[in-house]
């Protein structure tokens, strides 16, 4: 009999469309960048694209958004935080632009004190390049967090939840995500 698929579905946790920047206004008139060749089309338009019923805004809010996914890594045997960021029109942001918005993950800190390292890697499910917090330090700091275990043998679900919460409390800081205290206090 061939292998049966695991009863649990494989997947990942996702948190999407998190706005990571303050809106800043871009004055339309000052924006003069064009792609070469784009001018042709606009000059050849005779008809009016705008009618009186169209609201034309004089400014334009540029916002950056971030998607976060938590994926389990079989190689490292730990959860890994994947992230990607983009502008409001969908244009992806590069790492240096992301780091401006999430200062905790900037690479300017000295390498010794920094434990989070952002690398570009293919998302295991979406098969596109995302950024991820490199997991090779994870098991080290998880050991630190898990020292001094509770007495008694907690149930697996509790251990898992505790693990994920602890993991996320450390990792989330790098990207500016925090767990509400209520969530930490409420667990059984």
């Amino acid at each position, binding site marked *: 009999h061939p292998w049966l698929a695991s009863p649990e579905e494989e997947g990942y946790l996702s948190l999407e469309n998190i*706005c990571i920047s303050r*809106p800043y206004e*871009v004055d*339309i*008139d000052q*924006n003069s960048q*064009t*792609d070469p*060749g*784009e*001018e*042709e*089309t*606009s000059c*050849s*338009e005779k*008809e*009016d*694209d*705008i*009618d*009186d*019923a*169209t*609201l*034309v*805004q*004089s400014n*334009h*809010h540029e*916002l950056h958004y971030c998607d976060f996914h938590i994926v389990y890594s079989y190689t490292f045997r730990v959860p890994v935080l994947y992230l*990607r960021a*983009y502008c*409001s*029109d*969908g*244009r*992806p942001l*590069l790492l240096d632009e992301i780091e401006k918005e999430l200062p905790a993950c900037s690479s300017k800190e*000295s*390498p*010794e004190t*920094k434990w989070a*390292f952002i*690398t*570009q890697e293919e998302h295991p499910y*979406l098969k*596109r*390049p995302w950024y991820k917090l*490199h997991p*090779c330090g994870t098991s080290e700091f998880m050991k630190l967090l898990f020292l001094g275990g509770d007495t008694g043998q907690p149930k697996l679900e509790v251990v898992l939840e505790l693990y994920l919460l602890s993991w996320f409390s450390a990792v989330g800081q790098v990207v500016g995500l925090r767990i509400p205290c209520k969530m930490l206090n409420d667990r059984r």
Partner: protein
Amino acid sequence: MAKEGSGSILQFAPFQSSVDEGFWHRLSSLKLNKFGIDDSPIPISGFFAPCSHPQVSNYLTLLAESLPSDSNEESSIPAFNRGNRNRCSVPGILYNTNTMESFHGLDKQGLLKAEAKKIWEDIHSGKVLEDSAVLSRFLLISFADLKKWSFHYWFAFPALILDPPATLVDLRPASQWFTLEEAESVSTACNEWRNSSVTADVPFILVSVGSDSRAAVRHLKDWETCQDDGQKLLFAFYDPCHLPNNPGWALRNFLAFICARWNLKTVHFLCYRENRGFADLSLSLVGEALITISQGWREHQCVPNAVGWELNKGRKVPRCINLAKSMDPTRLAISAADLNLKLMRWRALPSLNLDILFSIKCLLLGAGTLGCQVARMLMAWGVRKITLVDNGRVAMSNPLRQSLYTLDDCLSGGDFKATAAVRSLQRIFPAVVAEGVVMAIPMPGHPVSSQEENSVLEDCRRLNDLIGSHDVIFLLTDTRESRWLPTLLCANTNKITITAALGFDSFLVMRHGPGPFNSTPDLKVEMPNSLSAVMDNLALTNTDGKQRLGCYFCNDVVAPTDSTSNRTLDQQCTVTRPGLAPIASALAVELLVGILHHPYGIFAEAEIANSNNGGSSELPLGILPHQIRGSLPHFQQMTLVGHSSNSCTACCCTVVSEYRKRGMQFILQAINHPTFLEDLTGLTELMRSANTFQLDWDDEIEDADDECIEL
């Protein structure tokens, strides 16, 4: 923009588009795998949701799911999950062209009219009552440049123009229009509507509030049943716009539908908006619009005009997005390659200087067993600029030991090694800047006829230029005499020079010391050529009195017995144990990286392994030896030091200054007259002052044609 009673023109905030990267990935994949050059229009879906934040509008989004699947399924209609409250789907059509010219040549007016006509037909046929999302049908034109990975695109959200335009009688937050009781009931009803997967994504609805303040949300097709005078009836729609004084674009076609279908002159509408997933009636707007329809609207055949091409930051130009960084395989390879080195720096070697590795230019003289391996090791360290010099062709036996070649390179007489090597490097890592030079290196003791003189001189000059334009030179040829000229030229210009040489079962890897006329980091020494005696002294030592390290020829000590046995060996020196070349090549590159990370670079003193005299093991990469000699039979390796010799035939100041004085003529003389160099430098003196050191095994350099230089 008016609020109350002024009856000004109702202005709508246009839809804003947002295209997820995944959409372009899938479009590229479809073009490459399925559609090819077929540019028929493609049905797609856009997704939007009601506004969810008081300060930010929502967008009409395209995702990978907006396109048909790129696997071989029969359906051309994209399959998506209905009932997703965050993704209300809207039908659209994509015209993707094959060239930039055809992109600019599309009849935009015509395409917009065609989509407007579809909306018009849906209004009159009753389709809207079944699937109201068709009122927000959209159009997208694009050109996907799959060579540069850039995508040019332009959205249009066709809106039927009311002529004369609708006027706004009143517009206020919904919480101010309803009573408190009504508002609560409306919120509840809307939340229920939005929470049910059957209705969550129906974007045009009726909201009726009875005289008992009880609200109900209904489908458009139930309009007839809502004709109760006691009721307030609002035409509601999911509004992605957040603005307090303007409704979103979707209302335009909704009004067109309402007046064409039901012939109403006054329309009360509700711009439905949410906050954190729940109906927000202070963000939502209720307005009253007056519509005057012209005669033409009753006639089905007469399609009204339409507007709707999206502005790009206020200008009527298409948008462009470049995704090379995430789609171009070469770019991805570059960032993956960098990753390894950066990880090394992060986890193990914080002082790793990647910038210098990325920027140095390496010249490899010889593209054989040593040259191929050194090139690969350099690339592994992040070196991107590599030039290989070799005048040979790839022979059938080469691919086994020379790791850049395969059988294909041997066919038809064999490609030139220099060109085949470059091709191979580019296949391994497309971003490498590799150049191949097919050239022989002029050698002393191999006299040239007068016809050949000019071409030999040309080669000398070319070699000199190559050395001048690179930062590091590797001497990886298979004869001793072929190393002479490069050594001299490098000593003259003080370039980092690394020699690797193989015997049958032993190897030598060494870095040449600085040239005789060098400026130390602290002191610039200008030496006029006439003061040869003074120069001699100065040249041997650095300012702190230490001798400069020697070159390959300074330290070349060959016991008489060895050179005799060497003479019988094949001049091509293919007879070495295969393991030697990879070992020696690897050490040569590691030695280079050590030099590049040493504060004194080429001037660095030699260190010996296991020395107790304060060798700088503080340097993160470890010690920086002068020479490494290895022996495979003993599986042993030793680090040695050899200082420069006053009588070195390649790097002593006599020779270098002679070269500086007479240039190519001097070279030619050395090439043509075997004893010239010995006479110039006084070789017996060299024998006397040569450094001696204990060796555990027979020192073996490699076979050499020993005619010219006897040591």
